[in-house]
């Protein structure tokens, strides 16, 4: 059987291709990122509002709507020089919303944002309650706003 041997020309081409890929990687490393502040804020607000309505229904306060909750997040990254963009577990979002009684609420949420546009948010348990809550029937269920996931479009 004839074994194909890598010729010097082929090696040269491979080296050139590897070099081009490295240069391209370096050039693109500083480029635009999929995770931006408007996208994080635009996703967290509606997701929290929906889940908060769900939680209030579980606790026996139906009738609230996501529009009435009107969650308004303000997000930033705590790492200096990150310019509030890019994936990371250092995203902090200050969320203001209106509860069932019409009173304004405010809480700090810690977000772990992944590069694929999905994040895990942890709410302040003093305001949103513990991980497990009792619903109106007395059963222990997961508190939807204690920790939750969300995703946004990265295209």
């Amino acid at each position: 059987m004839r074994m194909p041997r890598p010729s010097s020309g082929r090696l040269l081409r491979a080296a050139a291709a590897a070099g081009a890929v490295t240069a391209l990687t370096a050039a693109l490393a500083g480029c635009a990122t999929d995770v931006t502040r408007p996208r994080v804020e635009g996703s967290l607000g509606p997701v929290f509002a929906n889940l908060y309505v769900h939680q209030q229904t579980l606790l026996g306060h139906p009738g609230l709507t996501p529009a009435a909750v009107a969650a308004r997040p303000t997000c930033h990254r705590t790492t200096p020089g990150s310019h509030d963009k890019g994936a990371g577990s250092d995203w902090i979002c200050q969320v203001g919303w209106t509860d069932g009684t019409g009173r304004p609420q405010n809480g700090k949420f810690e977000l772990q944002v992944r590069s694929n546009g999905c994040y895990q948010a942890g709410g302040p348990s003093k305001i949103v309650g513990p991980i497990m809550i009792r619903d109106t029937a007395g059963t222990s269920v997961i508190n939807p706003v204690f920790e939750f996931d969300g995703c946004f479009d990265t295209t």
Partner: protein
Amino acid sequence: MTTPATPATTATATAAAPVPPAAVHPRPVGRGRVATAYRWEVTKLAAQARTRATLAVCLLAPFVFVVLLDRQDRLPKDTLYGRWVHASGFATPLLILGFAAQWVFPLLTSLVAGDIFASEDQHGTWKTILTRSHSRSQIFWAKTLAAATFTTAVLTVLALSCLTAGVLLVGHQPLESLSGTLLPPGRAAGLVLAAWATALPPLLGFTALGIMLSVLTRSSPAGIVGPIILGLLMQLYAFLNGADTIRHLLLVTPFDAWHGLLAAHPYYGPLRDGTFVSVGYLVLCLAVAYTALRRRDITGG
């Protein structure tokens, strides 16, 4: 069967060849032959213990997984829908979908795709199959189609098994969407199947990758392990938050495209881009494999 015979034989002849003998043209060389070779490849695959074992594992593993998950209190929260596995049976298939993309999918497809060409080298049977009036390109397309069939079968079996395991063992409670709204059971079931269907393009991309490595290295271990290692390296790149422009070109990124389907206002951008990327891998890898096989010198054993 040229002699006129009993009605029974005539009936058989008519069933076998519906075209009257006068109208028979020489068979088109391309498609018919590929179909014959494809049937043989599928028959060979179906006879392999590895193929059967893989399908059996895909059928049973989700049930074992759900039972094990049901017994422990800690939830796999790091993966999407991990926190809802006890709350809704529709969360189970989505959790497994997110988890399988990490390395299970490349493994499942390359078990066949990475071996289907290299096994002929291993057994020294290239000369045998090529003398059977089938050209190299016909054998190539037949083997490629057989590998793609296996990939599709594995994905279908695994998806249906996960959904069944979730619904039977956990229940058909409404599912939390990725926007925090509740999806009714019927809609959730449809979305779960659609989400699994979006894994098919990248999975076929990995199949092509396995085929390419199988043809180039002529070794089954390299063809099977190669796609898994490449998949893990791509995962690592995404995990380390590398440049997003390159991440979009990786074959593991389209495995996340289903997230858009589960939003209250669905978005399909990642699915569109992911499909383009998958087709790109598919075409490129198959082109390399095809060229390599055509140019190969198969005169020895």
